[in-house]
């Protein structure tokens, strides 16, 4: 297994690459440490998309971030999906691959959303075994991302951070730790985000995500990735850095996408937060 930090510097700052950015990237080749792309967009890509990605890969490391693994679906993992993911990771020589601790599909229907489950030891075993299998198949570090959520379950017997940490530990995998998700869930469910930070083994953190969110009229915070990062999230990021830095940091921005210079300016705020 390759060292998780072998291709991306621990202090690196990257951004999520979306289709809107290609013209700027090909024109200016901006100073970015690495890009992250959504795996599913390239598993069966149109040739044009694939050629664009190859041009980017020729100049930057690219990490793969998935939204369709369905780690906590009731059905077994989709091995054909994994075949395609492994091929893509090999072709891009991705330093690592990540996906979420969630379910996305059930009973043959894909919801194209990251959905929570109850936090119970029984599901730690299921998720950890599957994540370990994914990492073995990939032959490279596999990072599991903590979820933002809007509901909790009567059945839960563990806190979210106990559940998340246990899955990462028992799987022998890595963390993709999203501080915005911690903030969103802490506000929605009334827990202390610093308790979450304290439970994280930062030696297993591959990458930290930051992103923007939206507060609805009823107070619920929705993880929309369509705004700049909130000050409270940068503050939480700063505390995470103090506890466990350095770690590569990535800004996600998926809707109302700004120009690449604006995106990079937002991502650069990570440097200020680290100071």
């Amino acid at each position, binding site marked *: 297994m390759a060292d998780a930090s072998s291709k991306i510097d621990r202090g690196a700052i990257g951004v999520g690459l979306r289709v809107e950015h290609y013209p700027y990237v090909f024109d200016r080749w901006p100073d970015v440490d690495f890009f992250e792309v959504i795996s599913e967009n390239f598993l069966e890509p*149109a040739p044009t998309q694939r050629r664009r990605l190859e041009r980017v890969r020729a100049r930057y490391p690219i990490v793969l971030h998935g939204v369709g693994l369905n780690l906590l*679906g*009731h059905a*077994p993992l989709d091995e054909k999906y994994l075949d395609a993911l492994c091929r893509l990771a090999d072709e891009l020589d991705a330093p690592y691959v990540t996906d979420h601790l969630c379910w996305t599909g*059930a009973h043959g229907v894909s919801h194209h*959303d990251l959905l929570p489950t109850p936090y119970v030891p029984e599901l730690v075993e299921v998720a950890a075994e599957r994540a370990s299998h994914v990492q073995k198949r990939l032959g490279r570090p596999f990072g599991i991302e903590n979820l933002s959520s809007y509901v*909790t379950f009567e*059945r839960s017997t563990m806190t979210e951070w106990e559940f998340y940490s246990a899955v990462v530990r028992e799987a022998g995998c890595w963390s993709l730790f999203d501080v915005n998700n911690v903030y969103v869930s802490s506000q929605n469910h009334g827990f202390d985000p610093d308790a979450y930070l304290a439970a994280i083994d930062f030696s297993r953190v591959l990458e930290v995500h930051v992103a923007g969110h939206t507060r609805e009229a009823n107070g619920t915070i929705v993880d929309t990735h369509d705004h700049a990062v909130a000050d409270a999230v940068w503050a939480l990021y700063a505390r995470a850095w103090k506890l466990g830095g350095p770690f590569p940091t990535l800004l996600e921005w998926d809707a109302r996408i700004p120009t690449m210079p604006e995106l990079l300016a937002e991502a650069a705020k990570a440097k200020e937060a680290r100071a």
Partner: protein
Amino acid sequence: MKHEAPAWLADLQARFGGAIRTPLDRATGTLTAATHAYDEEIARETRAERLAVYNRQYWFRLFDVMHRAFPLTTRLFGAWAFNEHAARFLIARPPRSWDVDRVPDGFDAFLATTHPAGPHVEAARIDAAYRDVFRAPEVTPYRPTRDDAATLLDAQLVPSPAVAIVEEHSALVELRRAILDRPADARVDAPPSHDDVRSWVIVRGEEATATLPLERREAELLRLLADAPIRHALARLEATCTDEERATLPNQTRAWLARSVQLGLWISRR
């Protein structure tokens, strides 16, 4: 795997999934979440309005994917009316793939069975043709060699999947181009009908997709070539021509065939 997911998880996911796929309520004139749908397992304090977040996210994400896949159709209907058709389609065919871009697959055919023939159905066919061309696998265009010449007339050309020929009864292709150049939400009227049906060929290039007008007989020839050996296609075309057209047909068909090869409309011969 040693650890299988427990049976209760399958039950919970069936109920949770069913709740978030509940169609949004249109009665108030805005799309509102079906907050009456909830699951007994969800903690009481986060039950209805929080589940509504997932309910809205499910539908709005899919509507957004449908709008991007069918931009011309969306504008002709207007987003509100389009979403009603999209919702019917998504209820009949919920997403099955992890690839969200496959969600709209088949919407054009579905609309053709649920909506009267006319510009909306034609627009959906045109949007679908652009999707198909964009998503087609990498192909190498067929370039006949000197050795091919002797047998080419009896060969059948294999159309490239990265090419589509579309018909329009009004200027929908031009409208689509204008809509993509100036994105907006407002409904647009269908353009007035042409005197005759017009055809376009959509061809994917290295970096961009080209849309080129076809002469009426050229379009007919290209369709015939996709179904029959060249000799038969030419004979069938000639049979439908007037005496006046026949006089210039040999030169024209040679030019059209050469153009089709130059554009990369074929990937092989058989």
